[in-house]
C-alpha cells in the first residue's frame, strides 16, 4: 500500500467516523419529517373491536390500540388529537402499512416470526398479551384451565379454539367433554343457556362476548391462557429512528405505570420528583427526547394527555370499561404479570 493510498484510507476512516458520530446524534427520519410536515400522525387501527378500537357515539375513535396512536401523536406533535385513523380489515392491514398509507399500525396484531421475517415489518413491543382462555360461571369456582376437569366446554366445530382446547386437555390427561356447535354464536348461546360449563376464545373476544350474556356479572374470564398471542404496534422496515420512537413511547407508558407517574400527578412529578429515572422520562433532566429528535417533554405530553399504561388499560378494556377485564398477564412484571419495559437510562 502506498503512502498516498494509506493517507486516503485514513481520511476515509476519519470521514466515516465523523459520519457515524453525527448519525449517533440524529439519524435522518423521513417518517418523522413527514408527520411534522403534514401536522398529524397516520395510524392504522382495527375497523371495530370492542375495547381496542371503535368509534363511540360522538364519532371519536377510542380503545387500547387507539390510545397508543394518541400517545405517539402527543410525543411527536405535542397533541394527542393530531391523529387520523385508517380503519383496516385483516387483509388490509399489511398493504396499508407497506405502501406507506400509515406511519404506524396499532391494530391488535399478533407478533409472529414469519410476519416479521417475510412481510417487511417490525414489531415494536407488546401492548396486549392475548391468548385463548375460558369463561365460566363465577359460582363454579373454577379459576384456571386445569380446574375444568370433567367440565363441558362449548366450541365452534373445526375452529382453532376447539383444536387448541382439545390438545391442551389431552396433553395433561384431563377429561373434559367438548360440545361442538356449527357457529361461534350458537356455542356462546348454548353456554349462556347453561348447556355447558364453559366456552373458549381469546381474552379480548371473550370480554366482548361477555357483555352480550344475560347477566354478564355472573361470569368470570380466566386470566391464565393456553395459547401465546402477544400483540403490539407495527412499523415498516427502514427508518430506525422512527421505530425507536414508537418502541420507546410504548416503553414510556409502561415505565410510567411502574414509576407511579399518572396523567394526574405528572406535573408534580416533573417539578418535584427526586427519582432520576422519572426525571429523565419526563424531560426534567437529561435530553432523552432530543436524542430521538423529539421535544424533551415528549413522554410528559403522552402521559399528561393519554395516561400511563394502567390508565389506558382500565379505561378501555379494564375495570373502568364495560369489558371489565382483569389485568392478568398484562399486569407489570413486578405485580404478577409479564408486561415489561426496558429502563430509561
Amino acid at each position: 500500500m502506498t503512502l498516498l493510498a494509506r493517507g486516503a484510507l485514513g481520511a476515509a476512516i476519519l470521514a466515516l467516523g465523523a459520519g457515524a458520530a453525527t448519525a449517533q446524534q440524529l439519524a435522518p427520519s423521513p417518517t418523522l419529517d413527514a408527520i411534522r410536515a403534514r401536522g398529524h400522525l397516520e395510524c392504522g387501527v382495527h375497523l371495530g373491536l370492542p375495547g381496542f378500537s371503535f368509534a363511540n357515539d360522538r364519532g371519536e375513535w377510542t380503545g387500547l390500540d387507539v390510545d397508543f396512536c394518541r400517545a405517539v401523536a402527543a410525543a411527536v406533535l405535542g397533541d394527542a388529537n393530531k391523529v387520523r385513523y385508517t380503519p383496516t380489515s385483516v387483509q388490509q392491514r399489511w398493504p396499508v402499512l407497506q405502501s406507506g398509507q400509515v406511519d404506524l399500525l396499532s391494530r391488535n396484531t399478533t407478533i409472529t416470526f414469519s410476519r416479521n421475517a417475510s412481510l417487511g415489518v417490525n414489531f415494536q413491543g407488546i401492548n396486549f398479551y392475548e391468548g385463548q382462555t375460558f369463561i365460566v360461571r363465577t359460582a363454579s369456582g373454577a379459576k384456571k384451565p386445569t380446574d375444568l376437569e370433567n367440565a363441558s366446554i362449548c366450541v365452534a366445530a373445526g375452529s382453532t379454539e376447539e383444536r387448541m382446547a382439545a390438545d391442551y386437555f389431552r396433553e395433561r390427561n384431563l377429561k373434559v367433554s367438548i360440545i361442538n356447535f356449527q357457529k361461534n354464536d350458537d356455542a356462546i348461546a348454548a353456554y349462556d343457556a347453561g348447556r355447558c360449563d364453559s366456552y373458549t376464545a381469546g381474552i379480548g373476544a371473550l370480554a366482548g362476548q361477555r357483555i352480550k350474556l344475560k347477566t354478564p356479572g355472573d361470569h368470570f374470564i380466566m386470566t391464565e391462557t393456553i395459547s401465546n398471542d402477544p400483540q403490539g404496534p407495527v412499523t415498516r422496515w427502514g427508518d430506525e429512528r422512527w421505530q425507536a420512537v414508537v418502541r420507546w413511547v410504548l416503553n414510556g407508558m409502561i415505565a410510567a405505570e411502574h414509576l407511579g407517574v399518572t396523567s394526574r400527578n405528572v406535573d408534580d412529578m416533573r417539578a418535584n420528583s427526586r427519582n432520576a429515572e422519572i426525571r429523565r422520562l419526563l424531560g426534567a433532566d437529561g435530553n432523552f427526547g432530543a436524542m430521538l429528535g423529539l421535544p424533551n417533554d415528549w413522554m410528559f405530553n403522552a402521559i399528561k394527555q393519554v395516561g400511563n399504561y394502567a390508565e389506558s388499560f382500565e379505561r378501555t378494556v379494564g375495570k373502568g370499561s364495560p369489558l371489565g377485564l382483569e389485568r392478568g398477564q398484562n399486569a407489570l412484571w413486578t405485580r404478577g404479570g409479564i408486561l415489561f419495559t426496558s429502563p430509561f437510562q
Partner: protein
Amino acid sequence: MTAAGTLGVRPVRASLLRRIKADYFATPLNAVVSLLCIAAIIAIVVPIVRWALIDAHFAGTTRADCTGSGACWVFVKARFGQFMYGFYPPAERWRVNLAAVLMIAAAVLSFWPGLPRRALAVPLIWAGFLVIATWLLSGGAGLTRVETRQWGGLMLTVFLSVYAGALAVPLGILLALGRQSELPVIRLVATIFIEFWRGVPIITVIFLASLLLPLVMPAGWDIDRLVRALVGLAFVIAAYMAEAVRGGLQAIPKGQAEAASAQGLGYWQTTGLVVLPQALRISMPAMTNEFIALVKNTSLVSIVSIFDLLGIAQASLADPAWVGMNMEAYAFAGTVYWLICFGLSRWSRHLEAGRKTTH
C-alpha cells in the same frame, strides 16, 4: 282472475265478503292453502311486529334504557347521525343536506317532460350537479375541507351510487356504441372492456383497487381510497349498463339509421338524434334495474373498511356500549336499503307510465 275482475266492474263494499270467499275459499283445496298461508303470515309477522314495535324501546340514551326482549331502537337513535353522515363534522352536515336537495332537484328536472333540448340539457344538469356536490362535500374554495375518510353512512352509499351511476351511464353508452361500431379496433376494445369487467366479481375489483393499487403505484402517487373504490365500481356497472343499452340499440330497426344517413346525417348526428333517443327509452327499465343493483352493490365497499351505511352499522357494534345490537343494526340498514330501492323502482314505473301517455 275473478269474474268481477274480467268484467272490469268495481265491486261494491257489500260484496267484499263474497269476493273474499270466491277468491280464496272457492274449493276445499283453495281454502286449505289460504288458511296455511294466513297461518304462516301470522307466525312470521306477529313476532317481527312484537319485536320491532310492541316490545321495542324508543326512549332513553343508553343500553340500560333497554330492558326486556324487544328491539332497542335507542341504539339507532344514539347512532343516527353516524348512520346518516358517518364521521362528517356535525357543523358541516348542512352541506350534505344541501347536496341531497340539489340531487333530488337534478333528478326531477332531468325527467321533467317540459325540459327543452333534453339531449343537451340532461348531461349538463348532472355535470353541473356533480361539480357543485363535489365542492360541497369535500370543501375547498371557502368551505372547510372534509376528508373522504370522514364521509360515511347513508351519505356515502348515496354518493357512491350517484357518482358511479353518473360515470357508468355515459361510459356504458359509449361502450355499447363501440360494440356496435363498424371499426374493428373500436369494436374489439369495447368488447374486451365489457367482457373483462362483466366477468370479474365486484368484490375482487374493490379489493384489488384498494389493496393492490397502492403497492404498485409509484411513491408519492396517492389516489384517494374512496375514489379507487368508486372507479372500480363504476367500471363494472358501466359494463352492465353497456349491455342494457346494446339491447335498446338492437331493437331499433336498421332502416332508421339508413334513412338518417340518406338524409345526409353523419354518424354522430344519426346516433345522437335518431338512434340513441329511441334506444335509451327502450333500455330505461333495464338501466334502472342496473342502478338499483348498484345501490345495493355499494355495500361491498365495507370489506375495504369504507364505512357506507352497512359498514357503519357493523362498526357501531364494536362499541362496548352497544355490543350485541346486531339485529337492530341490520334491521335498520336493511330497511333503509329497501326504502331506497323500492322508491327507485316505483319512480321508474311512474316514469315509464308517463312516457307511454306522451307518445
